[in-house]
């Protein structure tokens, strides 16, 4: 298990991605699965950077746990900002015509679609978002 404590700023996104990707590469994660995980990591970290401490800034923790046999990863994001459950957001309507399509909610929708399990809890002043992904390309 490895942890990265970092200020929740979009400028730090590259560092967060590198932190996660190094561990996925060590686990032999296929490229396609890595991209799906990257997408989810980006959306969640950027969400925290934009909203958790707005208009101030604050810390976030990113924890990556790869199963010893390399079959799955659990990534946890912790911040101490305002309570906010991103999963409560309604999924976007994907059938609207071009003129009516909006991008809001698409990020979280991609997180839900690309990860095998995503959960949120608010505990002792912390937002804790946990997501899991099977690294062998099969759904759990």
């Amino acid at each position, binding site marked *: 298990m490895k942890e990265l404590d970092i200020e929740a700023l979009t400028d730090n*996104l590259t560092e967060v991605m590198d932190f996660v990707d190094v561990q996925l590469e060590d686990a032999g994660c296929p490229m396609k699965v890595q991209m799906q995980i990257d997408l989810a990591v*980006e959306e969640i970290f950027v969400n925290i950077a934009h909203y958790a401490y707005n208009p101030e800034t604050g810390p976030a923790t990113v924890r990556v746990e790869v199963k010893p046999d390399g079959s799955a990863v659990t990534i946890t994001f912790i911040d101490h900002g305002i309570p906010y459950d991103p999963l409560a957001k309604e999924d976007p309507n*994907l*059938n609207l*015509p071009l003129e009516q399509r909006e991008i809001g909610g*698409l990020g979280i*929708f991609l997180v839900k679609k690309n990860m095998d399990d995503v959960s949120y809890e608010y505990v002792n002043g912390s937002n804790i978002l946990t997501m899991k992904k099977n690294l062998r390309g099969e759904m759990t």
Partner: protein
Amino acid sequence: MEYNVITSGSKMVIELEGRLDTTTSPKLDAFIRNSLEGINELCIAMEKLEYISSAGLRVLLAAQKIMANQGRMVITGCREEITEIFEITGFSDILTIE
């Protein structure tokens, strides 16, 4: 992310390379919004694009909305992973992917 632009008359090709994410999308978005005057055919070539997040999708949606009023936009050369993102998000229905 890098992008390479080839314009000939009213046709523009933008070749994307690398990662189109929260960090890199604003630059491409600004370029597209400022450069499409007089363009009636826009091609976004993705052979070298490795990754796209919702921030990148937002740029494509904005470009598609502009081009819908003045011509057409096509996406070419998507890798399988990126095609899949377009399908999951319903973008494959609103973009022209060749």
